[in-house]
């Protein structure tokens, strides 16, 4: 039941926030913050008071909720939470709080509608991370999309309509492919077993011919890689991120991209293990290409939010590489990268928004020398830039290191290519610091340093980033059982190439 509450609280909170604004009762931002904190508390409370894990078809689950929904088509309302899901939900709610704090003063018109959308996106994302019925999963996949579309399209910057529609078309078209794949999967499962069901656990064992499985896997893969995003389906992201309001960027980068990676880990690979194994070299190549290509693209940008958007693509390339490397080391690294990237990119976007609010531009050519007037902001951005480039001791390093370590086992050449990303990461990360905070001051009046609200928000994120970087082990143990289904992927051991 706890799972239903997790979903319902932001859902109801959204309506309350809207009404509160309509009736001018309370600030909808406060409602939103309270809602998210309540949800966060519930999750944390649940984690500490949870019962013994429930076992379903060999997997451990912390909580399961199973209700009939449309029994005629085998569609159930199945929610379940395991370590991976818990981590993702925690990340979602944490970044939700950050997003609300970062947009505290940014939104002035139709505030209620804005926070309504934020909370419904949150609800959809939590649904995605907990639902284990493919139909329900698809439902939530769409639920998180449409509020996001409004956040970008209504509250975004100058080119928002273009960005919002591009975002919508990309995700919707790829979502359609996933829907087709889901229905086809159910159909073929029905053909072989005579049972119509959308249930994840039952579909795990679906018997499919190799070619069918391959095509269905591709359907899922394209949907998830668009969301991830991986080259060459990444081009919606720079536009969407650039045009979205700060909170939108934070949620988009920190949370929504993770749904793609989560989908790969939870659905694409376990549902079609053999096809995924066959496809793995392609997926890993895409990951490696994403890492390098997006890193180079990031360096080229002059719009700060665009730059950060491309770094996201680069980082998510590591996730793609890790998920398909086919061993647990890399898979853990992939999840760690997801968490770490959630922190760093969200923080950087929050700052891009904060700077944008102060000087009303995102163009880095018009910035420079901010360190003098805003040293604390500079230090914090420096921290997150450094985290983003994979400094050991911070969260990103753990993820990237484990991904590369695991991927090296699977495919040396691709890992070597991906390692070039390690060289390009400082190129783009440091240029941010250089262009904004160093150099001569270009803006006439000094920009104000971080406010208390921003400091508190950032300290929270710094603590999490350092914590994940220095003590990642508890988190990794939490996710361990969820990754059991991943290493099914078997490889021809290319490592033997260089054996003695």
């Amino acid at each position: 039941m706890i799972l239903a509450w997790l979903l319902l609280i932001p859902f109801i909170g959204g309506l309350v926030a809207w009404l509160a604004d309509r009736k001018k009762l309370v600030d909808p931002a406060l409602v939103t913050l309270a809602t998210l904190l309540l949800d966060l508390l519930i999750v944390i409370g649940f984690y500490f008071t949870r019962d013994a894990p429930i076992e379903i078809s060999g997997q451990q689950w912390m909580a399961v909720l199973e209700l009939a929904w449309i029994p005629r088509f085998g569609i159930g309302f199945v929610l379940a939470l395991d370590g991976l899901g818990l981590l993702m939900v925690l990340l979602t709610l944490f970044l939700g709080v950050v997003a609300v704090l970062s947009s505290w003063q940014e939104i002035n018109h139709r505030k209620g509608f804005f926070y309504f959308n934020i909370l419904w996106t949150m609800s959809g994302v939590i649904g995605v991370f907990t639902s284990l019925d493919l139909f329900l999963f698809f439902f939530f996949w769409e639920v998180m999309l449409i509020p996001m579309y409004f956040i970008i399209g209504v509250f975004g910057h100058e080119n928002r309509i273009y960005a919002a529609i591009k975002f919508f078309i990309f995700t919707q078209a790829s979502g359609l492919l996933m829907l087709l794949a889901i229905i086809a999967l159910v159909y073929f499962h029905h053909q072989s077993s005579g049972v119509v069901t959308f249930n994840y656990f039952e579909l795990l064992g679906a018997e499919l011919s190799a070619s069918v499985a391959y095509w269905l896997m591709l359907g899922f893969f394209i949907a998830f890689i668009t969301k991830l995003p991986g080259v060459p389906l990444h081009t919606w992201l720079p536009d969407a991120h650039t045009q979205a309001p700060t909170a939108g960027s934070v949620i988009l980068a920190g949370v929504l991209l993770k749904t793609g990676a989560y989908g790969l880990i939870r659905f694409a690979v376990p549902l079609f293990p053999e096809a995924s194994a066959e496809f793995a070299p392609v997926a890993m190549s895409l990951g490696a290409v994403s890492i390098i290509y997006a890193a180079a693209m990031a360096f080229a940008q002059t719009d700060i939010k665009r730059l950060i958007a491309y770094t996201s693509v680069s980082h998510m390339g590591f996730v793609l590489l890790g998920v398909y490397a086919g061993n647990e080391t890399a898979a853990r690294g992939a999840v760690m990268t997801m968490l770490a990237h959630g922190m760093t990119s969200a923080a950087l976007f929050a700052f891009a928004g904060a700077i944008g609010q102060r000087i009303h531009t995102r163009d880095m050519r018009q910035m420079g020398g901010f360190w003098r007037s805003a040293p604390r902001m500079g230090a914090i951005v420096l921290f997150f830039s450094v985290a983003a480039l994979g400094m050991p001791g911070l969260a990103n390093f753990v993820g990237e290191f484990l991904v590369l370590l695991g991927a090296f086992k699977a495919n040396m050449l691709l890992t070597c290519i991906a390692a070039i990303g390690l060289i390009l990461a400082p190129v783009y990360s440091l240029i941010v610091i250089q262009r904004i905070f160093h150099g001569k001051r270009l803006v006439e009046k000094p920009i104000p340093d971080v406010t208390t609200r921003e400091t508190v928000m950032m300290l929270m994120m710094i603590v999490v980033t350092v914590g994940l970087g220095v003590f990642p082990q508890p988190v990794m143990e939490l996710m361990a059982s969820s990754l059991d289904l991943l290493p099914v992927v078997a490889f021809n051991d290319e490592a033997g190439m260089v054996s003695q």
Partner: protein
Amino acid sequence: MLEFLWLVPLLPLLGFLLLVLLPLTKRAAAIVGVGSVGAAALLTLLIVVELFGLSSDAQVFRQIYWTWMQAENFTAQFAFYLDPLAAVMMAIITGVGFLIHLYSVGYMDEDPGFARFFAYMNLFIAAMLVLVLGDNLVVLYLGWEGVGLCSYLLIGFWYDSHANGYAARKAFVVTRVGDALMALGMFLLFLHLDTLDIQQLMANANDQWQTGSSLPTIAAALLLGGALGKSAQIPLQTWLPDAMAGPTPISALIHAATMVTAGVYLIARTHELFLLAPDIMFLVALIGATTLFISGFTALVQTDIKRILAFSTISQLGYMFLALGVGAWSAAIFHLMTHAFFKALLFLAAGAVILCVHHEQDIFKMGGLRKRLPVSFWSFMIGGLALVAVPLTSGYYSKHEILFAAAGNENSGQLLWLLGVLGAVMTGLYTFRLIFTVFFGEENTRVHESTVGLVVKLPLVVLCLLSIVGGWFVLPLDHVFPASEEQAISGITSLVTDVAPFVGIFIAYLVFHQNKALADAVVAHTPGRLLQRFWFSGWGFDWLYQKILVNPFMLFVRINKNDIVDSFYRLAAWLMRLIHRLFGLTQTGRMQWYVGSIALGVVLIVGAGIFS
């Protein structure tokens, strides 16, 4: 005291955190910054004394704190490992580091970023200690990247200038190239040896791998890549001269005494792996010899006092690599230590000079400073003598050990020795060119003495002392490294080695003191000028990298700013819009046009029905 090992890196780290988080006054910042390193140095002293008090077999101490990362068979403990090698490094880092911190209090006195400076310095000391104490390669890598970061931060310390920022980023990125190779080396080692604990790794390597087989060769080559980056050896040396953009104490601490020796330390630390790869060993020696030779010439034609010292550092690091390459591990570490003393001394003295001549760094705008700045002059003199390895100075002992080891090496040892000796001549030449130009001749700069206070002088005096007596220390590293057999050095070799520095000094005396017109005359000729320009640019490495790496990348980046992949989608959207417009044309709003179209459609359909 050994159980307090964890406190040694923690103290400067705490200092860093205090400096960052609290708004300290300048005085408090100085106390925290210097105090934390001072305390770490004191603790190090106690620990080192206790460690060397143990019997020589038991001089190993390991402390495990927590499991950092664990997945499948991969485990990285957060653990420190102390043995005589690490202890020596620790002593150098905290000792020299403390002196330089002290010096910085005076040097940075008027800088607005005083607290920030000490924060970075403390973080650097902490990271460097983690580097040398790391029990496994991952912890080592943590320190390795940490010092790289601090190096970046400190090179770009004066952030107003874009040139400084560029130099800082260049340093970070170039060393990162090495780091990426090193990371790949770690992956390879783990894949085949199932561990990254250095001691276990070495044991496994010895068990599983044959000497000279491909795997240890590749692994050693990859680790060497990391070492080359950090220690500024060819082909990754280009960042170090530019790194002189930072404040002078930084150059002394990071880019002369400690961080740049990390590569030497890494190879010494994993020497067993390198012993399994003789080809790479020879490569190390060759790179070292080439580097020391080439950068000696470059140093000769520089005009910026700090760049001269920077190229000199590269050259001296080349000696260390030469020593590593010929298996003279102790000699490499020995030279690392003496070099830390005298090069720190030289940089600090140079800093004192620069401070007194209003931040002028061109040596030809100085001159005759001998009388006005006696402390700096004598410091420079002693440091310089140690650098050129005049007998009885510390540099003499370490450098001779290296040259003799090179001479005795069966693998083209004569060539290596010859390059080393030529390098020694060059060292004498460029060092005394510097000294003669700056401190002798006629005065042509205004000097203000007042800024050089006691906190600046004291470290200079201590380092002078160390530069002289440093060579008398006997490093207790016999149990860390395999014993190198005593080589028979012929008398002539020994004689030439001894005389080489004096030849350099003598030429310098002739050309740069006695007859200054000579140098100008050489440069006046076209070949001479071309050669001078070639050497000045550091043998064209920067130019080459600019042409083959940076420019293509920048070109790609500039062309592709709008993302070529997106153009595909833009094309699709454009096509849709085109079709939309074309079809929109048929929508004329004229009823008869529509009726006509319908009629035409009927005609066509019926016609198709008839003729099919």
